[in-house]
């Protein structure tokens, strides 16, 4: 059982529970622009975070809990029993992230053996820009964010709805990150 099988198992479980999710983070960058090294699978989940003290959620053993201070969301890190692949779940609590889950689109993946829910280019850009402006973001991660944004914009320039990106990134206070890359 490898990474693709782990991802399929987790996505199947969310489907069974009728909980919408969308892939974000490094794996979303793979889909949108170009593969780069990442350490985990990040999922934005349209659900309430599990109660404090819960040992598992959607088949994942809970390893850590934290707070996403950019969108004010609960975050749970976990893994499938006896499997090392980390999953990080962001529980969509902000109107922008909730609509990003709703706007997800399927990407058929022969490796995963099912469709994988991918974010729109615009939602990825706005979320990435918002995280890059977080005061707690390390310089190294912010630099990586800038490289990721540039890669997506260069790869997808012709299809980006810039009116949408500008409206939402202005309301989140991160348009200054994206405007020079337009």
């Amino acid at each position: 059982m490898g990474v693709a099988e782990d991802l399929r198992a987790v996505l199947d479980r969310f489907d069974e529970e009728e909980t919408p999710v969308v892939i974000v983070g490094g794996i979303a960058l793979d889909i949108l622009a170009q593969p780069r090294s990442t350490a985990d699978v990040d999922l934005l989940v349209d659900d309430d975070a599990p109660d404090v003290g819960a040992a598992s959620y959607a088949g994942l053993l809970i390893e850590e809990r934290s707070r996403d201070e950019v969108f004010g969301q609960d975050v749970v890190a976990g893994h499938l029993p006896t499997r090392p692949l980390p999953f990080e779940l962001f529980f969509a609590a902000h109107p922008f992230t909730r609509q990003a889950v709703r706007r997800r689109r399927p990407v058929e993946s022969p490796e995963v053996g099912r469709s994988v829910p991918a974010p729109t280019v615009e939602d990825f850009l706005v979320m990435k820009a918002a995280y890059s402006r977080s005061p707690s973001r390390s310089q190294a991660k912010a630099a990586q964010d800038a490289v990721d944004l540039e890669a997506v914009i260069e790869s997808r320039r012709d299809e980006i709805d810039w009116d949408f990106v500008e409206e939402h990134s202005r309301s989140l206070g991160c348009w200054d990150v994206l405007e020079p890359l337009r």
Partner: protein
Amino acid sequence: MLVRAADAERSGTRREVYKSIRSIRVRMGDLARRMWARRSEAERLAEGLDMLERRVEKVTDPDQASTDPREAAARGFRSLREEG
């Protein structure tokens, strides 16, 4: 560009060497980006998952693995989390 970097190295100007190396890296990044832009989303996802697989394998090297699969999985998980 490689010739320019080699020339800069011979001339002994560290700043010039760094500048040349940086421009090589930028150019390589551009080439990689253009190459990946021609591939499908599914192909890029497959490559990304493969990279993640290799990283997971690295931190769960059997030489360091415990005989207890739960312990080994938790250690691998922690290593990946710390790296990330």
